[in-house]
């Protein structure tokens, strides 16, 4: 007979250095977001616009059947890149993303700072960049699910409903634009929310800032624009920068007569700033001098 040895047991296995070390963090972040019942409800309701747009695509292929509803304005239902741009950059959609960031992103780093969790993470072979990637991937998951996934589905369904590839032949670059713009959205919002979350140890102040900075930039733009009517002022507004970039990537003329690449530059600059903040704020130990 063998008796199990008492006391501490060793683990028979080998630790591996994986390139995906950050993945468990991402998984945890997603899991924790869905633990909040209110968030689940809210997040699923944010797919409503996507469903409506999907219905629009269906109707566009069956215009004959729905003629009674349209009352002579079928132009709306012409599926062009503009249709995609509207879905992916309308103000409500961007506002929803801000709310998602508040819900998921507000505490993502702030809570770790508050409960001293960083020292637990960094006592493992985890680099700062892994940590940031893990957290960003969490946010990206939620953003991509709302942007990239519906965008790609729209194209697929358009082709399915039409039963031919005419649409793609007209706009062969459209899938690329959808992917590219989704990535810009993701990169910007994830970096923005993380940086603000890292600035405070308090989840709620972080949330307040994620909300406040986004809106203040837009209000300031509005006030200035009322007075100066200078199109370059759009660079002040986070929302409009995103919309400019959307228009640019979808091959449309931007709402304001400013090269969209400038807006892209502003957004990338902010992303860079966000990384600088993250670099400064994420430390395994807080050192007070």
């Amino acid at each position: 007979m063998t008796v199990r040895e008492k006391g501490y047991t060793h683990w028979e296995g080998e630790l591996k250095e994986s390139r995906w070390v950050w993945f468990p963090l991402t998984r945890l972040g997603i899991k924790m977001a869905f633990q909040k019942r209110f968030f689940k409800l809210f997040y699923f309701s944010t797919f409503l616009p996507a469903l409506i747009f999907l219905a629009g695509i269906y109707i566009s292929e069956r215009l004959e059947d729905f003629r009674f509803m349209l009352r002579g304005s079928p132009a709306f239902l012409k599926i062009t890149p503009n249709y995609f741009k509207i879905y992916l950059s309308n103000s409500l959609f961007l506002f929803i993303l801000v709310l998602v960031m508040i819900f998921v992103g507000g505490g993502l780093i702030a809570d770790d700072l508050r409960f001293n969790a960083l020292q637990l993470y960094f006592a493992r072979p985890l680099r700062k960049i892994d940590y940031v990637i893990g957290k960003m991937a969490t946010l990206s998951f939620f953003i991509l699910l709302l942007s990239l996934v519906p965008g790609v589905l729209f194209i697929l369904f358009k082709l399915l409903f039409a039963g031919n590839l005419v649409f793609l032949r007209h706009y062969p670059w459209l899938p690329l634009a959808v992917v590219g713009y989704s990535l810009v959205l993701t990169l910007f919002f994830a970096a923005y929310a993380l940086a603000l979350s890292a600035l405070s140890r308090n989840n709620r102040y972080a949330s307040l800032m994620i909300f406040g900075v986004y809106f203040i930039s837009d209000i300031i733009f509005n006030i200035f624009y009322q007075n100066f009517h200078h199109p370059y002022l759009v660079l002040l507004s986070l929302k409009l920068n995103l919309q400019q970039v959307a228009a640019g990537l979808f091959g449309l003329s931007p709402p304001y007569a400013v090269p969209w690449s400038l807006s892209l530059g502003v957004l990338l600059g902010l992303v860079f700033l966000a990384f600088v903040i993250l670099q400064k704020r994420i430390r395994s130990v807080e050192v007070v001098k």
Partner: protein
Amino acid sequence: MAIRSLSRQPSGVFWASWRDVFKFYFFLGTHSRRPKLFFLLSLVPLAMAIIFKGSQIIYGYPRFSGLFIYSNMIMMFFLQFLILLLTLFFGTSVCREEVEGKTLPYIVTRPLHKIAFLLGKYTAYTLLVSIMIIFSLTLSFIIMNLDRLGDLSLYKVLLRDGGVLLLGIWCYAALFTFLGVIFKKAIFFGLLFSFGWENIIQYFPGKTQKLAVVHYLKSLLPPLSQEGFPFLLFRLEPTPRGEAILILLGLTFFFLGLSCALFAGKEFIIEA
């Protein structure tokens, strides 16, 4: 055993508590980091004013009068954004800050009347917000009207606007103090209220708009020009001035009273 201070008058303790709590939190508010950030935020309109005026002086543009820009844009920024954000932070802080920072035990084991504590801290924080806002408002006003500072009738506008903002600050802060006493997630509810409810309800026709605090504040201001933000303006059906002031004060007292009653009776369990 002689118990030295037990013989003091209860009302004396109440006022002394209020005074000392007020002093302490005013001191704390001016010595911590977080409020400083909000002070910077409160200076945003001032920066805007400087840019506008500078541009007007140098380029003669924008062509609107200083007063117009001030009352249609800068003042609205204060009213519909800034004071909400600031009171949301400071109002919910009155109670939440102590619970989250776990400093409540230091306070409740001092000879302080609980209601006086709440009122004292509320007074300190709202005064802090008021000072920030009035400071920024006055400077913005002066800068925007640099060309006609001699016109005394102008200052009536400033006084009125200042008064409206103060009423707004004290009322919102009372409301958010109340939210802070009852909810753990006070900020979320506060955000929903300020930028959801307040923003939408005020544009509803008929009596519905009277359910928003901002309705009464706007009733105290002259109707805005259509040129500024046309979308902001439809269908304000103002409440008479006196009534509006009374309702704002009433709301302030109502929410403060409710907060006090709840705070005095509530236990906050602070885990080690």
